[in-house]
């Protein structure tokens, strides 16, 4: 393959944008706005370049595509291995799509320490893209950990009152999970070496490693813990409401829109296919926890006085659907789950942006402070209502497709779980609509709200793509689905116990032979 290393370009372009910002002084207003423009343009360029992945990507091939493979630490079989398949493909586009929108939303919200903020955002984008592209488990881990540092700063420096507590909690929860995962990664690699004699961290080689049953279960458990914290699954979700409430709007959008997907993505890419037996062993537990998460998240969201916290708990509920969809292990469930990841990125991202818009004007997020503002901000109210419907899962919006497919898959596999999960849809409608009713309808009760300005041109500009996406994904799901089918088939055959997962097609380039020939 002699084509340009597209994934490397996409991943490291945001980082290039950091360099010019370093030389701009942020003392003057002109300098600050220059920094904003540099990072906005960088992220838009990244989005445009990432669209080329769409051209280069063939939805009929199950293997990883656009593969780049270079040896990195040859003495331990670690390589710089990047590639996409139908699952990571859309998540990469989601990342490059949401980042410019987020950056545009911070135009007036971030006033202090502007340079540091945009540097953090761009570094974060590089780390997120790297995490989705990495096919070497060590490389993945490196990006996964790097991601923590800018997010720690975004929450901790630009967040609300209890920001330091939230930042540390976010960091420690993720770090503890992922450090245990590191031990198991190394263990897995040595088991693989024992079986084949090849020391490698290459994911495509490690698939199909047979482990003693007990280790399979242990390793899966520690991988699952690391990813479940990120998802977040009940009961390790407690960092999420804190982090969301304290984070600045941009932080919340990225956190909900993309970072949470890393957890579910980790299950799809690593935990489940690497340890199919361990995964099967824990299936009942994970389905139970997902259903608890769906209902618990919805119930707790219902009673939140704070809009942002409400949206945060709704994330717990939505991500519960994603996990349920993955674990029913059939075409509908898994595809629905991946679709729901994208939906959640767009709808919840949009909700956080909308909450941010009124927060910037009124500096409060309490539902009781508002009421009747549909009259004062009609355009805002319209957008908010559309996004709400998408979050509830009304037909013609994206949310419907995802939830419907997941429930369809769940009915095939586990009727009880499906029935219970379906009740979450109703609860979701209740808490969202109730909140909308209290905030937007009725009389204007609080005189402070009388002078609220409706959305500005800039705000419309960044909300519009999201609204378009909501309908596009709701009306033409096949445009998105057709790229997934083959990869999802492969994923299911890797994880299902009945299939012989040792005979999977390997990646076109044989990793070990390449590394060894270079080594000599």
């Amino acid at each position, binding site marked *: 393959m002699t084509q340009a290393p597209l994934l490397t370009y996409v991943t490291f372009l945001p980082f290039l944008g950091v360099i010019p910002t370093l030389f701009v002084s942020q003392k003057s207003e002109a300098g600050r706005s220059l920094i904003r423009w540099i990072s906005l343009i960088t992220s838009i360029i990244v989005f445009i370049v990432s669209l080329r992945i769409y051209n280069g990507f063939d939805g009929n091939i199950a293997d990883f595509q656009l593969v780049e493979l270079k040896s*990195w*630490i*040859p*003495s*331990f079989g670690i390589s710089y291995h990047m590639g996409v398949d139908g699952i990571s493909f859309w998540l990469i586009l989601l990342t490059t799509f949401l980042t410019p929108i987020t950056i545009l939303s911070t135009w007036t919200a971030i006033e202090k*320490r502007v340079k*540091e903020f945009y540097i953090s955002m761009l570094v974060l984008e590089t780390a997120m893209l790297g995490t989705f592209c990495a096919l070497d488990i060590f490389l993945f*881990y*490196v990006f996964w*950990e*790097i991601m*923590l*540092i800018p997010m*720690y*700063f975004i929450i*901790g*420096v630009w967040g609300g009152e209890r*920001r*330091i507590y939230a*930042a*540390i909690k976010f*960091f*420690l929860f993720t*770090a*503890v999970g992922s*450090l*245990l995962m*590191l*031990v198991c990664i*190394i*263990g897995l690699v*040595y088991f693989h070496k024992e079986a084949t004699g090849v020391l490698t961290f290459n994911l495509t080689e490690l698939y199909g490693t047979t482990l003693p049953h007990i280790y399979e279960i242990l390793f899966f458990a520690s991988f699952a813990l690391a990813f479940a914290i990120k998802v977040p699954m009940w009961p390790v979700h407690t960092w999420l409401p804190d982090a969301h409430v304290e984070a600045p709007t941009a932080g919340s959008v990225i956190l909900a829109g993309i970072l949470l997907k890393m957890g579910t993505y980790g299950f799809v890419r690593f935990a489940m296919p690497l340890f199919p037996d361990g995964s099967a062993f824990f299936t009942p537990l994970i389905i139970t926890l997902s259903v608890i998460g769906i209902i618990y998240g919805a119930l707790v969201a219902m009673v939140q006085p704070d809009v942002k916290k409400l949206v945060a708990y709704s994330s717990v509920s939505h991500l519960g659907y994603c996990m349920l969809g993955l674990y029913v292990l059939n075409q509908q469930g898994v595809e629905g789950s991946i679709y729901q990841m994208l939906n959640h990125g767009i709808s919840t991202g949009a909700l956080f942006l909308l909450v941010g818009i009124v927060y910037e004007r009124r500096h409060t997020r309490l539902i009781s402070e508002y009421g009747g503002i549909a009259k004062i901000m009609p355009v805002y109210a319209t957008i908010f209502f559309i996004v709400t419907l998408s979050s509830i899962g009304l037909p013609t919006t994206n949310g419907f497709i995802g939830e419907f497919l997941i429930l369809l898959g769940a009915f095939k596999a586990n009727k009880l779980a499906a029935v219970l999960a379906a009740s979450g849809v109703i609860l979701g409608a209740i808490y969202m609509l109730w909140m909308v009713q209290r905030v937007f309808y009725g009389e204007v009760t609080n005189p402070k709200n009388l002078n609220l300005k409706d959305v500005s041109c800039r705000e419309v500009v960044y909300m519009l793509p999201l609204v378009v996406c909501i309908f596009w994904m709701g009306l033409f799901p096949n445009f998105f689905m057709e790229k997934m089918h083959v990869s999802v088939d492969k994923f299911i055959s890797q994880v299902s116990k009945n299939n012989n997962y040792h005979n999977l097609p390997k990646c076109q380039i044989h990793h070990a032979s390449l590394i060894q020939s270079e080594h000599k």
Partner: protein
Amino acid sequence: MYSDYAFSLEQLWKIAGGQLVLLLAALLIICADLFLMQKSDDTKKASVIGWLTVAVIMAALLHVINREWQLTEVVFMGVFSMEKYSAFIVITILMAGILATLFGIGYIRNNKVCRSEYFILLLFALYGAIAMVQSVDLLMMFIALEIMSVAVYVLAAFLKKDRRSQEAAIKYFLLGCFGSAFFLFGTALLYGLTGTVNLSFIAKVLSVGMFERPEVLVALAMIMAGLFFKMAIVPFHMWTPDVYEGSPAVVTGFMATVIKAGAFGAFLKIITVTFSPALAYSGQPVFHSVLNLASLGVYWKAVIAASALLTMFIGNLVAVSQKNVKRMLAYSSIAHAGYMLLGILAANDEGRMGVLYYLFSYTLMNLGAFGVLYLIDGTERNAQTLEDYQGLGYKYPVHSFLMALFLISMAGLPPTAGFISKFYVFLSVIKEGYFVLAALGILTSAIGSYYYLRVIYMLYMKEPVREIECGRMTLSSAVALIFAAIGVLYLGILPEWLAQVAQAAQSTLAFVF
């Protein structure tokens, strides 16, 4: 493999040039300081001598890289062994020496304590550390250990008028003597049992079937205690926080890296050459009783596993409750010793390579952190507590960024050298099947990240409580900090080169016999 060695200057230069340069330069600088430069201004004198010292260490470093790196022989009637393993640690030590000298030049200027003894003592300490790593003779090792230690005892008391500096020196001196005595007693026991103090001879004699005898274990325990003291391994770590806190920041950085590197180098050599179960499979005919040797590993491995675990836990846990950044870094350096001990415990190629890699990157990040610490400190004891660090990130962006970088590396987060080093040592113990130990150890690393991050949030996320005037960034400090920062990032992103070098270095340990 003893070389036929006739005394000639050329030969002497070839095998011991590095040591000779340091020793002669130290003596010459004393004379120069006393007689030649009496008239000149103190500040100027100190900085001239400082740069001279840098040049001297650089010369020794070049000699080691060019000449001693190529050697594989035991010289001076079996006292020193010149092989890549020693050369690697010597390079680490000399690098630490250069960094500490560069910081020292700035420190002396900022604190207006213009005395050039700092550099002379530093050269002696470096000489001692190097000789200790290169020796294969327990008695020589002891002498080198003492040369190093005495110089550092004096360095700890460098701020003559500061009571805490004096306290640190006295404490270090008393406890240090105790540690050295243990080492000497262990040596004496082994000499009594085997009739030799040479490491490989001891192994050969013991292999006749004496390993099971309790005296041997007592001797080994004594030697371990002596060296663990210098390495600051729990339960021989009690002196560390007080001494590190009381000594001048640059000396603390020097102590935490050079002494640790020297002691780790010597300890790994003793364990591998004399007491390693790997000897049993080395195929050397002299080792009669293969089984005896193999079973010996069981004893010290249990001890090392326990101390490593305790060291990681106590170092990290106690660091959490520290308010003083210097004291916190002292506990963190205890914790780091625990991680390095894991590599020795694994006793495989990866483990020894990991220890070497860890020592090298630890030197960069730790000295870097202490370098920034002394700059933030300004005049000594100006800003030491976490509270003083509040909000410095925006007033002193360069200082704070470097501090954050070194601390992130110590916390073991990618893409820094600290992450790769931890990865290597954990990899080596997991390879040997120590899953539980690795999992517990890595959890302590999560505890560690908590207190490292706390400094970072003090720097960036809090508003300042009082005005802090940081010290001026001198040219010498800037050079050293840039070198350390680039090193930390380079070793974190492209570790292969140094890993290969460390691998080559550790594989020469077997040549010592």
